[in-house]
């Protein structure tokens, strides 16, 4: 949290040496390299004894650099604000790495994604295809450096059918469904009106962002790409990327830029939570609450456009600073808008939560117990509503958060109402943070003009998005990133849905799915255009073929 005491860093270094590996500490990151054989023990020690939080794993094709594949597991030590990166190498001909999923259940999806996209096999676990579509040829692994980014393999079209069942009713929700905002597929197995099991299949809109950044974009252009990972939380993705690159290149960004980044991050958090509350009311049938909540949100959207130039996808971040400043007039307007919003919001929430149907349907449904929340490493309001006190703004302070004081709302019931109340409290805290930061913002430049980004450096950064901790991992290359990995918070929250939906009445299923605030655009990251079971070329204009 505060000072990175040397004693704790020395403990990690000695742990690495004990596991026959090596370690190097750089400010708040500890890079540990261990051989394959001791990987599972290291991960298990970090997760169980040191109580580190598991975030994600990253597979990197390092064959052009040193002839190996590598997999890095990212842990964070929340009490001490440290990032622990555990890296291991494997040979290129037959890459196999022991899986840590038995000790760290949250590693399930990221290992399968690495297997699909890089071809690295994981021992001691059942493997399945997660991200790539069923008809994709086995030998083509898109993230390997020898596959060009615009290569289209011949795909055998396979249509995935609904699983038939004779004892239980099967209700398919999605991929296109009025209740969902993005395509995903849930199969609910029901007995009467009670949900007994859930099957999830996502990754319908995977866009190949990581491959694009490695091949045809420059450092500054990736900011704009990162912003478009998500339609609601875009700014925090671009901030996280910029912070990760600045950390890797050891660039000192002017203080004023960091303050502006924090202020706009909080504005984004307010608008995201107001959006979620409106959607939750709509799912429960209380449309009046939905319309009024979005009316309150409209003022925040106008404020965002005033501060940055666009209602969404602000285009504000660059590596080295921000592009627009906040002058005195904008500051006054911001403070006015926030005061009005706070009053309107408090009144509206009071009225809306008192509606008997809303209260009855939110209380006691979709419960996630604390042990499951810790085991699956869930993020954000989902974790805080189940009693896990975790917030990256306090644990790994970044941008200007160390200059503001704020509370972290934690509830213990773990039901839908707790998740709603966590978000309501966070909106009020965000308003207070913005007021504090606007008060203390220092003078100075907002952008660094001249800087160099050295090759081969690693930077990791966690940013608290409205939905939880978002993590970006960057290895710098020549003029553009060598590897960029994004793990959005909803990625960790979806596996928790299985537990939340069991034994619940069917009518609450959309509400529970909506309560984790799923952002499937953040979760998936590629696109396959398919019409009438053949791949179609999009012809936009003569001579422009994508």
């Amino acid at each position: 949290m505060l000072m990175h005491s040397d004693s704790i860093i020395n403990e990690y270094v000695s742990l690495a040496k004990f596991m026959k590996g090596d370690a190097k500490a750089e400010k708040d990151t500890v890079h540990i390299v261990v051989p394959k054989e001791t990987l599972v023990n290291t991960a298990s020690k970090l997760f169980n004894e040191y109580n580190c939080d598991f975030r994600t794993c990253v597979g990197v094709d390092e064959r052009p650099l040193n002839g190996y594949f590598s997999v890095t597991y990212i842990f964070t030590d929340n009490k001490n604000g440290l990032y622990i990166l555990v890296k291991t190498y494997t040979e290129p001909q037959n890459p196999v790495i022991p899986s840590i999923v038995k000790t760290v259940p949250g590693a399930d999806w990221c290992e399968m994604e690495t297997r699909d996209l890089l071809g690295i096999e994981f021992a001691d676990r059942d493997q399945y295809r997660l991200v790539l579509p069923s008809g994709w040829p086995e030998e083509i692994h898109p993230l390997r450096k020898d596959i060009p980014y615009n290569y289209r393999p011949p795909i055998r079209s396979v249509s995935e059918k609904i699983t038939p069942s004779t004892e239980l009713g099967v209700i398919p929700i999605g991929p296109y469904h009025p209740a969902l905002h993005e395509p995903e597929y849930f199969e609910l197995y029901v007995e009467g009106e009670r949900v007994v099991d859930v099957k999830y299949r996502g990754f319908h809109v995977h866009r190949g962002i990581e491959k694009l950044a490695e091949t045809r974009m420059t450092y500054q252009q990736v900011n704009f790409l990162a912003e478009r990972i998500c339609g609601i939380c875009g700014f925090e993705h671009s901030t996280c990327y910029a912070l990760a690159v600045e950390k890797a290149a050891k660039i000192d960004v002017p203080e004023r830029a960091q303050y502006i980044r924090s202020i706009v991050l909080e504005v984004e958090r307010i608008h995201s939570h107001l959006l979620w509350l409106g959607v939750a009311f709509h799912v429960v049938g209380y449309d009046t609450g939905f319309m009024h909540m979005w009316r309150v949100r409209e003022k925040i959207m106008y404020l965002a456009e005033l501060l940055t130039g666009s209602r969404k996808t602000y285009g504000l971040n660059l590596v080295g600073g921000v592009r627009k400043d906040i002058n005195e007039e904008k500051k006054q307007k911001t403070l006015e808008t926030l005061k009005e919003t706070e009053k309107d919001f408090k009144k509206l929430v009071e009225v809306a939560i008192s509606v008997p149907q809303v209260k009855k349907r939110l209380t006691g449904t979709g419960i996630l117990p604390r042990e499951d929340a810790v085991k699956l490493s869930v993020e954000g309001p989902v974790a805080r509503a189940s009693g896990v006190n975790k917030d990256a703004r306090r644990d790994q302070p970044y941008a200007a958060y160390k200059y503001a004081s704020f509370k972290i709302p934690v509830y213990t019931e773990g039901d839908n109402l707790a998740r709603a109340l966590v978000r309501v409290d966070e909106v009020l805290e965000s308003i207070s943070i913005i007021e504090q930061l606007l008060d203390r913002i220092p003078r100075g430049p907002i952008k660094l003009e001249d800087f160099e980004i050295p090759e081969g450096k690693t930077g990791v950064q966690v940013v608290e998005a409205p939905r939880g901790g978002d993590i970006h991992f960057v290895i710098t290359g020549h003029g553009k990133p060598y590897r960029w990995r994004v793990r959005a918070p909803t990625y960790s929250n979806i596996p928790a849905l299985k537990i939340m939906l069991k034994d619940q009445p069917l009518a609450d299923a959309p509400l529970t799915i909506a309560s984790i605030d799923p952002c499937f655009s953040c979760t998936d990251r590629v696109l396959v255009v398919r019409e009438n079971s053949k791949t179609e070329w999009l012809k936009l204009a003569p001579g422009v073929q994508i």
Partner: protein
Amino acid sequence: MNTLHYTIYSAIGVIIGLTLPVILDGVERKIKAILQSRIGPPITQTLYDLVKLVNKEIKPIHTSPFILLYLLSFIATSIASIYMVETYVYTLESIYITLGLSLLAVSLTSLTLTPLLVPNPFSYAGGMREVILALINESAFILSTTLYATITNNLVQLKSATTPSILLSITTAALTMFISGYALTGRVPFDMAEAEPELASGVLVEFSGSLLAAYMYCNLLKRLLVNLIIVSVTVTPLIGESAYSLAAVYALTIVLWVIFAITAVILGRSRIDLAPRTLTKTYILLLALSITGLLVHAYA
């Protein structure tokens, strides 16, 4: 007033009764929009929607070819029911209101069974929910309306004294009538048969063209019929027989529709296991009080 006048006025009343729901639905949407701080569609929007739907083709569904007949039979029985209610307004004889209520029960059966004819699991789930709610609400509505009509008629015609027990009986019967009538109109919080997000793939998705237009129209007509019955039973004993009683009844039906619309805006949707439980408990309590009051008055 002779029977010819009654028949002409009743026929005009039936025509008004058939066209009013479309305009009133537009008014309801406008009120909903005003209460949600937005401009909303024009009042004639529902009319435009229905006209547009009628002009589109019907996509064939794998179900009984007589499905349109179910909806047309609903409209026919509703017309008969409206006529009966209007006759009650003019003659104040309770037989007519009983006939009107039985015709209502028949018409509601055909409307409730329509979702069950569609071969779609969401439609079955929605249809079952509709059946559960219909069983509870219809029985409460018919019982309470009959009670209220008989008691008020006796009071007005026999001019017997009003004791506290009979007053209790009347008010609880009236309360049940209003609540079950509101629940029968299929507004929030009881519109769970089709409007629940996870079920939004049932009847409203399978039907198309004039079939969908007929289904939407029948739901609106149901609302008018229920409102008409409630208002006739409440207001006619007070007005008595007059040439303008039918006009007054229709005017107050419009007012009741607006009140129901405002109530729908304030509430959220209930859940299929919560709603029947709450409703049953409420109805049993109120009806028990009403019948007790009646018995006390009769034997005391």
